[in-house]
Structure formats: C-alpha cells, structure tokens
C-alpha cells in the first residue's frame, strides 16, 4: 500500500471513531488531540481499529508517531512494508 492509500485508510478509521471530523478538512499536520480534539479513549479505539483493519500492532510508545495524518501514513506504510 502506498502512503496515499494508507492515509486514506487512516482517515476512514479516524472518522469512524470521531465522526464529527470532516476527512476533507484534515491537513497532514493536524494533531489528533490538539487540533482534532480526540481524547485518549478515542486514540485507543483508533489504534484497535487500525490493528483490525491492517493487522498492524502499534505499541503505546509509538502513539506519538500516529499523532497526525501525515506521520501516521508514513509510520503505517513503513510498518506494513516491514511485515
């Protein structure tokens, strides 16, 4: 999967957890908690959803690496490639 595909998957799961977010309005640098107003339970649900969808396990220490759509796309595609 390319980074662009991965970004789209990430946004799909993000807006399932937080359907108040308009995916078209999310910039690569928007922070999940500071800009998009997710709370820590949302982050857990998002991590679980990504795991189910992609089979990628994201350890707690790596949560900062999926804190924006841009960072998440890079992190997830690298993780998928490493599998």
């Amino acid at each position: 999967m390319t980074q662009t595909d991965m970004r789209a998957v990430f946004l799909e799961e993000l807006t399932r957890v937080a359907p108040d977010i308009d995916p078209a309005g999310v910039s690569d640098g928007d922070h999940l908690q500071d800009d998009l107003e997710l709370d820590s339970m949302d982050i857990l649900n998002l991590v679980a959803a990504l795991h189910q969808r992609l089979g990628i396990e994201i350890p707690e220490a790596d949560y900062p690496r999926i804190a924006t759509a841009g960072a998440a796309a890079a992190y997830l595609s690298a993780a998928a490639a490493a599998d």
Partner: protein
Amino acid sequence: MQDDRKTGEEAPRAGGVFAAGGEGSRWAGTEKLVSGLDGGLNIAHEAADRHVAAGYGAQTAIRWLGKDGSRRELSYAELAAVSSRFASLLRQHGLQRGDSVFSLMGRVPELYACAIGTLKAGMVYTPLFAAFGPEPIRTRLEIGEARVLVTTAALYRRKIAPFRDQLPSLKLVLVTGGEAPEGCVALEPALERAGNQFETVRTGAEDPALVHFTSGTTGKPKGVVHVHGAVVYHAYSGRIALGLEPGAVYWCTADPGWVTGTSYGIIAPLVNRVTMIVDEAEFDLERWYGIIGRERVEIWYSAPTAIRLMMRAGADAAAAFDFSSLTFLASVGEPLNPEAVEWSGKVFPQPFHDNWWQTETGGIMIANLPGMEVKPGSMGKPLPGIVAAILREDSGGLTECGAGETGELALRPDWPSVMRGYLHEEERFAKCFAGGWYLSGDLATRDADGYYWFVGRKDDLIKTSGHLIGPFEVESALIEHPGVAEAAVIGVPDATAGEIVKAYITLNPGYEPSEELEREVRGHARKRLGAAVAPRSVLFRNTLPKTRSGKIMRRLLKARELGLPEGDISTLESDET
C-alpha cells in the same frame, strides 16, 4: 450570596472555619495551617503572598513543561506578582468583588495567574474543561452568570464566538497571547500594563471563592459553591493524604477543568509550598515516565484511566526509566482496580494509594494514607476528623449498615471545605442532606477493618475516565438531531475508562437505522458535547422502556446490558423493543 444558602439545620454549619475549628471541635488546630489576613481569610494570600512574606519568594512554585519541550519556572514571588497584575486588570475593567471569572484552557501558565488573581480580587473562580463542546460550555457560563472568561484564541473561535452575543452577563473575554480576536482582550500586553501591586481583598471565611460544575441525573449541571475557608481543609488534606510538605516536588496530572485540578492541582500544593510540576501535554507514556526521572518527582497524584493505560503498555515499557525519586503515589476519579495497585507496586515500585472525594466535598475524604497498609481495590479510611458512615433507609429513617453491607456513603457535613450550596438550586442542595448527614449518592461498603469499598452510583450518573457525566445532558444533545425522537444514556463497564457512555435512541418518521446514521448521530453529539462526554456507541431501538409517567428507565437498560436482575419493574408501562 452566602446567607441564603443555609437551608435549615441539616445544611452544613456556616459558622466559618475558625468557628468550626474552635475548641472542642474535631477541626481544632487545623486553622494553624493557614496564616489568615487581618481577621479575614483569602485563598490567594495563603497560596502565594504569605510565602513571599515569609522569605520563600525565590522558591519555584510552578515548573511548567510545554508541549514543544520548552520549560518555564515561576517562583512564588513571580506567582504573587503576576496574580496581582491579573487582579489589577480585572479591577481596571470595572469588575467587582463577587463577580464570576471562568477559565477555559489547558495547563498553561496563565491559568495559575488567573485562578490566584481572581481569588485575590475577591471574585469567584470557575474552571471549565477545555475538551467540552460548545453546549456544556454555554450551559455552565449561563448558570454561573460569567462576567469574565479567560481562554485561548483557538478555543474562543471554535466554542464561544458562535453564541457570544447571547450571553448578556459576559463583559470581558481575555485570550492568552499577544493578539486577540475581535471583541476580546489580549492577556499578555494587558498584564504588562496592569500594576503588580494589589492589596488582596480581605474576604471572610464564608465568602464564596470557587464554583465547580458537576453533573446531575436530571436537569442542568450543578454549580457547587465553595468558600475561602475551604483552604484550611485543602492545606490539611494535602498534607496528610498526599504528604505535601514544603519543598516537595509534586505532580498532579488532573485536568484543570475539574475539581481535582483546582483543589490538588493549584490550591493544596501552593498552600503547602511545594514545587509543582505542570505538564501541558495530555497523557503520553514515555513523556510521563521521562518527566518523573528528569524532574525528580516525589509525589504523584494521577487517575485510574492513565494508570491503566500505563499497565497496558506493560512493565517492559517502564524498565528504562528512573523512578527512584518517587515517595508517594495517589489516585482519584473512580475506583482503582486491585491489579493496577499491585502492578504499580512492582513497577514504580510504589503502590498507587486510592482515595475518594467529590466536587461537593471540596477535598479528599477517604484515603489510603501515607504509611497506612493499602488494601488494593479499597478507597481507604476516612481522614482523621472526617466522620463517615454507610447508611440504609428503612421505615425508621436512616440507619447505619453493619460491616460488609452495602448502603449509601454519607459524611457528617462539618469539615471546612464542604460545599455551601448549588448555584440557584436550594432544593437540590437541601436534598443532599438528611438526618445530619451529607448523602454522597455513592453506594459503598465498609469492612471489619474500617476500610471503605466503592460499589456503584445510587443514581444514573456515569463515571468515565474520572469524569462524572449526567445522562440528561447527553440525551438533550442527542434529541437535537432531527432524526432522533428519544434517547436514553447509560454507562457500561470498560476496562480502561471505568465506564463508557452508551446511548439508545429511537428515530423520527422518515429515518431508518443505518451505520451512516449511527455515525452522523455520534458526530452530532461530539460536536456539541466534546469527545469526553459524547456517547462512544449509539444503538437503535423501536421503543425504549418507560414508566407509566413516561420516564425512560435507564436502570433497566443498564441491568440488561450487564446481564443483571431487572429488579422492581412494577412501574414499567411499555418495554424496550
């Protein structure tokens, strides 16, 4: 304001903390923990200025850690000066003693100037949770008749500007930083212009100081009134339940929008002259672990959800960090499960000491105290001076339960920080007291050793991630969606958050259940209420279980959700389908 809050002999004694602390009282001697102010008592003086007068002005009061890695140190002298500037600024804008000042922001340095400065000016401080959506914010600003709001430009634009012109009481909006949106005043230049000399208002012990909002099962949220005299109990309970001693390094992770963030995130630590660590960022595992070692945190006060998030990451994730500075760990917000207590005892290696209190109590009531044997899963024992009981109601009125029996947790309402009222709600306030007891609404048991154990709520309130959420407020937002006819909201158990908010809805004609609609309704609720309050899941029903009088039986939905006995359903008129 204070006099009309007395509602007969069952309300707390409003004799003032010094009166309550007189000879023969259980509180005798605690008044020595504060200095007083020419016969008056003001929390701001106790938290900042008196330490400067005593020669401790150079000690760091707040060590602030920015999200971006920046650090700022604020000494007690600087805190005293900046809070004086804030008080001067309020007065320059024509505000008067008793006016209400609200804050809506995260853990930023301005928050502390705002809280202490407001109290210094004899005004009443109310913090709001910045993650609230516009609805809960607006409701609270209205009930509290906010005159001043201190916030950030981003929060103002997103959550206040759309209804600003519908809040006639709101005279002044201060925003952090150097520039302000239209209709607001930029705080930074305004503070620079304001004088740093301000004579602290000589408030009395019974003068209102703080209003904290908490949720009710029905109706609007309640504005819980606390007085300046509460500072005696903040000082006392901080000292004996958390071990806050002058010079200690202390980190309270609570959000400033809730009562813990004020009682033990601002007042108790400053009055006890500790050095507070304030981290601007939200929970982040490695950041948190790193802070403890780097800042040499000694006393750490956190909450079950954060502790369970650490546990999920496992002991290995903690292995590389230095926890040797820690001397005492405490937790509050909802019951801390025994596994988390045991886990922390191995990893940090100190057990988290659970404690229990409420917005209404103003301070810690029941705790696993420093030096006491921790019973994992128990909230501990009443603090010395606090009289607690487990009560049951029978034909003869209220009687005390025996060891191991479940009843309502109640307290003799004579400690200094007991609430003095609910804003504009005398009847609801009076209902909290009976037979000389404050009734907490929490069900609990006491074991033969005198330890208390939380069982559940007596009402339908939901405890999620340490926040108390009223189902009515959530249901009201849900039925604003054009497709939603009726809504019932309950809390369902969750391994991390304690409980999560779940909604059952029925639809208006023309709407059909679908995944798309479920998301739309959740999105609608999140926009209005914010992520922490909105339901995490929404289920469609044809009808909801109701009583003959048309009241939705949340209790029945919850019993079914949990697979528990349905209890008395004699009032059930139409069932869930």
